[in-house]
């Protein structure tokens, strides 16, 4: 972070503390009538008949494409301006603290662009498959849709998710510490189907996958993965891919770093060696303490985070029955178990997995407990079906150091204070 940013954010902090004191004062004053305590307008609350009962609502098709209630207007993607030089090469984060279940709504899936969002007319989009193949192929979107379809639910995580936290607790909210992940049901064509269609030559061992955006992102993908479970997707959660997610078609590379999931996919070239592109050499390589860097670290390690409570989602109800909710995932396969600690990792309690537990997909967990109003140091720890146990940040730094940027899957700690506020902390 630059000095300027620091100065700027300090003045913002002062304002925010004032804002918080004012809000806290308001809360204390409202402890009078039940209706007032819960907030809102008593005229719309029992025993009165609310205005939306006494009048007709909006008719059908007034909103031909529906959107969330106006009271949910704060449930949005957010970016961190000081992180990047421009919004065209930047990231916005999924508001994980506002979501439940395992599916991320299309409009809230985090964005990562390297040259802005390409806004492509599908009539002009082409997918070209060539190189070491028997029958080079060029497809329109309509032609791609004529191939047999598959539906798969997968998480997608940027390799740099939590990357700002390597040196310590920095961003105060799971939207920012963990929000470069989403989970979507994709519909598309198995990449294997397309590769069989073009006939990969026996020396075809690698694929170059390339996007049509202003960065024309290109990456090397080994043929084993390409033939295993990759998809050329054109639908997300049932509807067309959103432009910011690669409309009209993108690559889905289950369990592997998001950078490989090339959006606006225009070209697949089969070759016999990796290309060593910018995004797999100068970026998305993990610098170790000895100055060497790991490359081709494709798999996203087992990880979890508590989404509620969290800094943007404090406990507002005071002591009593409390639902702790969170997400776990693994690029190795299915999540096997999640444990929760209330004391910073000293003792652990099994969490309850609820909803589908799918291969390389977000998995929802809950831990319900009776909060006594005392401060807590909340942590979650996932284990996947291969036995990998999410490490503590200390364990992770011991092998990966502080300058990895990518692949920070260390255990997150939230400090719940007696007043229910939550902050991002590190413990030792």
């Amino acid at each position, binding site marked *: 972070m630059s000095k300027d940013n620091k100065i700027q*954010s300090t003045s913002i902090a002062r304002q*925010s503390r004032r804002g918080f004191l004012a809000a806290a004062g308001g809360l204390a004053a409202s402890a009078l009538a039940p209706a007032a305590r819960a907030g809102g307008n008593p005229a719309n609350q029992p025993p009165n008949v609310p205005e939306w009962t006494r009048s007709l609502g909006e008719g059908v098709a007034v909103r031909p494409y529906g959107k969330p209630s106006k009271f949910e*207007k*704060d449930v949005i993607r957010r970016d*961190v301006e*000081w*992180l990047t*030089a421009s919004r*065209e090469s930047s990231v916005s984060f999924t508001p994980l603290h506002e979501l439940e279940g395992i599916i991320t709504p299309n409009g809230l899936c985090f964005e990562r662009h390297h*040259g802005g969002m390409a806004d492509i007319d599908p009539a002009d989009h082409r997918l*070209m498959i*060539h190189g070491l193949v028997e029958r080079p192929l*060029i*497809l329109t979107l309509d032609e791609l849709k004529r*191939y047999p379809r598959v539906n798969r639910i997968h998480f997608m995580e940027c390799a740099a998710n939590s990357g700002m936290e390597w040196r*310590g607790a*920095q*961003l*105060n*909210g799971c939207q*920012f510490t963990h929000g470069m992940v989403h989970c979507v049901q994709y519909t598309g064509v198995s990449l294997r189907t397309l590769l*069989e*269609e073009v006939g990969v030559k026996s020396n075809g061992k690698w694929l*170059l996958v*390339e996007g049509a955006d202003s*960065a024309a992102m*290109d990456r090397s993908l080994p043929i084993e993965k390409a033939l295993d479970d990759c998809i050329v997707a054109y639908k997300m959660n049932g509807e067309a891919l959103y432009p910011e997610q690669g409309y009209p078609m993108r690559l889905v590379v289950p369990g592997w770093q998001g950078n490989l999931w090339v959006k606006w996919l*225009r070209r697949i*070239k089969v*070759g016999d*060696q990796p*290309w*060593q*592109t*910018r995004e797999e*050499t*100068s970026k998305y390589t993990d610098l170790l303490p000895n*100055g060497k860097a790991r*490359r081709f*670290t494709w798999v996203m*390690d087992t990880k979890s985070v508590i989404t509620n409570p969290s800094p*943007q*989602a404090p406990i507002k109800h005071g002591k009593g029955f409390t639902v702790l909710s969170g997400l776990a995932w693994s690029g190795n396969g299915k999540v096997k*178990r999640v*444990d929760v600690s209330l004391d*910073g*990792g*000293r*003792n*652990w309690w099994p969490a309850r997995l609820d909803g589908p537990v799918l291969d390389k997909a977000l998995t929802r967990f809950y831990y319900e407990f009776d909060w006594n109003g005392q401060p807590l*140091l909340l942590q979650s720890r996932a*284990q996947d079906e291969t036995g990998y*146990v*999410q490490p503590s940040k200390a364990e992770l730094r011991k*092998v990966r150091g502080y300058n990895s940027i990518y692949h920070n899957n260390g255990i997150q700690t939230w400090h719940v204070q007696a007043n229910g*506020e939550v*902050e991002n*902390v590190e*413990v*030792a």
Partner: protein
Amino acid sequence: MLKSPELVVAFVLACLSGSAAFAGGSTELKGEAKPAPHYDIGRAPTPEEIRGWDIDVRPDGQGLPVGKGTVAQGEKLFMDNCATCHGEFGEGNGRWPVLAGGKGSLTADNPVKTVGSYWPYASTVFDYVRHAMPFGNAETLSVDDYYSLVAYVLYLNDVVTDQNFELNNKNLASIKMPNEAGFIMDDRATSEKAFWQKDPCMKDCIAPVKITGRATAVDVTPEDAKEGKSRGVE
């Protein structure tokens, strides 16, 4: 008549698949030496179409287009197209990428990863610049311009030292980058084997802990994200 074992395999597989989409397959088999497509959807790209899009370059030089450019030519292009963001000497303006310097910093507290200090292959610079630069005006310069620009970036990093040096499709692959040996393959399965366990610890796993760092002390979180704040977009 099926002419090769490969054809027989393709034919048998297609029949076994029972796919109704196998339209036209038998005529293909009769008429051509190539195995038939399974679905017959889409078409073959023309050589010209492939040439227009086939712009990737590998470390061994495969894919390099015929062309050339000198450091001196690159310097002028760089000032006109790149220096606003990257700085005249590749030092980077603001948060825009630093292109030069940082040598020997990879084990330091704040490593500076540049073309000279970090990038393992010169081909990568060419591939990237030709794909994505100038930022916002990508794939608009000539091949010779891209050679010139890459030559200048290599010069900024002391990889080449002569202002008159000419980079071309014949010599680019022979340029050795200082940090080529700085990379290892993903070794997490062995170097981090300890993270795979039978049963994770549940009780008295570590000594009682204390808070050692707070995000609120750093305070770089966007203001509108703080609880109860609204950005007011509607």
